[in-house]
């Protein structure tokens, strides 16, 4: 862990990290863009998840509802990860040591891996077996809501 610790200390000392850490307005703006990204990701997961579960617009093809949502989720993820990394850089050591942050990252890794392996494939086809649609919908919803809740838990520590 020593290497990682010294990496975080180096990261915190970089010019960009110092600038972010020194400005609450800049941190607030990054946090706002971070939450915008999350709204797109979790909203997309919600809408497409409900379609996969057959709750929302069940008469529409899966690809009509869930495929654009899954693509929008990638835009949201990119936005949130980029702003998240910038915010992380300013307080890397303290944040990395937080258990709720570690939980959020573990859930995020699982959610991203699931999205790019199972989810994108499932939402692109209209003839996937119903069981697979339902299970993908449920797993996607659980993982992304987990990320959102862990993220809101982390706000308290800021």
């Amino acid at each position, binding site marked *: 862990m020593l290497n990682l610790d010294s990496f975080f200390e180096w990261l915190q000392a970089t010019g960009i990290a110092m600038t972010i850490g020194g400005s609450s307005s800049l941190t607030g*703006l990054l946090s706002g863009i971070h*939450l915008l990204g999350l709204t797109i990701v979790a909203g997309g997961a919600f809408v497409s998840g409900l379609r996969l579960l057959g709750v929302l617009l069940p008469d529409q093809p899966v690809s009509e509802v869930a495929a654009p949502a899954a693509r929008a989720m990638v835009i949201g993820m990119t936005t949130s990860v980029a702003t998240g990394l910038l915010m992380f850089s300013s307080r890397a050591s303290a944040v990395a040591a937080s258990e709720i942050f570690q939980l959020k990252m573990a859930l995020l890794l699982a959610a991203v891996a699931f999205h790019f392996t199972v989810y994108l494939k499932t939402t692109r086809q209209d003839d996937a077996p119903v069981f697979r649609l339902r299970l993908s919908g449920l797993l996607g919803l659980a993982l992304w809501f987990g990320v959102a809740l862990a993220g809101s*838990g982390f706000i*308290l520590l800021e």
Partner: protein
Amino acid sequence: MSIMEILEWIEATRIASIARESAWGFQILVGLHILGLIFSVGTLLWFDLRLLGVSMRACPVSRVYRQLMPWTLGGFVVMLVSGTFLLAGFATNAYSNFYFRTKVIALLLAGVNAAIYHLVTERRVAQWDHAPKPPGRARLAGLTSIFLWALIILAGRMMSYTMF
């Protein structure tokens, strides 16, 4: 009674002190506020995108609306209630905060935008319900909604970083 005195009285109520002083009270309220945001704005975005003619183009506008709106409104109520409690806890700080004022104005404008859509634009929805790309007025309503809600989210986060 001045506005400041009223706000101080609100801050002194029991519910406001729970929002402010209890770590769990604050935590649960913030969690609910963000969940409400995902349900409401996260689903509203897809109706706005339908109005813009960007997604779900094969599905009638009125049907997308009816399917999404229970989630949007349900989430909005959760967001409004949790936001009211949070606001009560920090009433005097919020009142003088620039971003809080921006957020309130943007919320009111979002309400006006929705009212104009429902009272004027939507009255002729039968003519363009199936159109992949709805007319300019409907697209403008969708775009305005996306812009205002993005502003509300940004201002909401900015206020919590600049209030204390």
